[in-house]
């Protein structure tokens, strides 16, 4: 089926197999490999992207469903080679180790901040409950989000390193 889809502001017209997931379409057809495939079953959140303004697990969306829709991925997060404030906070707080979950984490964090500009730790935990990280233990990720939303109060830098 031929689909028209806007990804990170760029309009694409592509032929795609009906059984291809949005995730595979992004990675294989558009070369946007920042979005990762973890479990493929909606558990781990590594494949989280924005679809029509809402975060979804792109492993559980068909590419054909995105026809006439808009998608935003991690590749659209920075502008002109400059990291977003959220990305910089992840960098500053060492919220990235292997990096596999990071694209999805950033997407979920962005959605959370959009709805809750000044989240509490509990709200962050809930906002990220669909994103698994096996490296960091989440503390650094929570700190990064607190930092970018003005809720970070730690006295010293790099407390987890």
């Amino acid at each position, binding site marked *: *089926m031929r689909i028209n889809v806007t990804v990170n502001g760029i309009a694409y017209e592509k032929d795609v*197999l*009906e*059984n*291809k*997931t949005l995730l595979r379409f992004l990675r294989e057809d558009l070369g946007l490999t920042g979005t990762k495939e973890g479990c*493929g*079953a*909606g558990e781990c*959140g590594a494949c*989280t992207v924005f679809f029509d303004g*809402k*975060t*979804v*697990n792109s*492993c*559980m*969306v*068909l590419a*054909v*469903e995105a*026809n006439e829709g808009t998608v935003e991925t991690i590749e659209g997060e920075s502008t002109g080679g400059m990291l977003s404030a959220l990305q910089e906070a992840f960098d500053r707080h060492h919220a990235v180790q292997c990096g596999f979950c990071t694209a999805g984490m950033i997407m*979920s964090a962005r*959605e*959370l901040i959009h709805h809750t500009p000044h989240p509490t730790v509990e709200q962050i*935990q*809930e*906002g990220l*409950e*669909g*994103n698994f990280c096996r490296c960091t233990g989440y503390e650094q990720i929570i700190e990064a989000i607190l930092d970018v939303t003005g809720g970070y109060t730690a006295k010293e830098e790099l407390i987890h390193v």
Partner: protein
Amino acid sequence: MIHQFSYTAPTELTDLLTLLETAGSGAKLLAGGTDLLVNIRNGLVKPSTVVDVKRIPEAHAIMSDNTKGLRIGWAVTINDILKNSEIASSYQLLQTCAHDLASYQVRNRATVVGNIVNASPCSDMAPALLCLDASIEIASSKAYRTVPVRQFFTGVKRTILEPDEMVIGITIPIQSKGTKGKYRKLKRIQGHDLGIIGVAVAQVGDHLRIGVSSAAPTPVATGALPLDISESEAIAAVDALISPISDVRCTKEYRRFMVSEFTRRLLAEVRS
């Protein structure tokens, strides 16, 4: 995914129902896809056609009025329920259960109707809908019927739906407006997880109802119980309803114990 299928997304309900009649059991309806696409991927379901039901505008409607109550269209998502202010003020139990369903991203896609049609014993929305005495609207190209949700489930992953039928809406009667209730789900972790068991206790008008998930082949609920029912009588009423099994998550004895325990705790919370 290895399995191949055709995809269609009708924009009129009549077209959708006609399609369902022609394709019969070879067609699978795609709403949130959070069960269907995983099942196709795992080879558990092999549809010839996937019919996307979300392109019909009325599918997304949440309507509330003072005579008919609340009506939820067939593609209303769990997060639509959580963001609706009318539901927050008048049908709070729906939000309480919705809040415990999976993760944020899944709630952006998963639908209330899908959660019911999937007929998993661990459905999180079913305890609320059972307590609120919801009706399920079912349509085919030839007929329309409304069935109380307590008659909808017939077994594990089984419902009364015929192959040419689909659920087009859920109605919560006006009598259930203002229901106060609590839902608690026993999980292995604090984050999102399938429930080991779940219990909802609701004060609906002048009586109580208690709904349970993951403790019988289908979600179950008591009938109307008197408001002043004793703790032991309430626990006995729930205990008589359930028939838990032992599985990878826990034993049937533990399930039965925790259903009683959650009933006791929630009863106290709802009454306080």
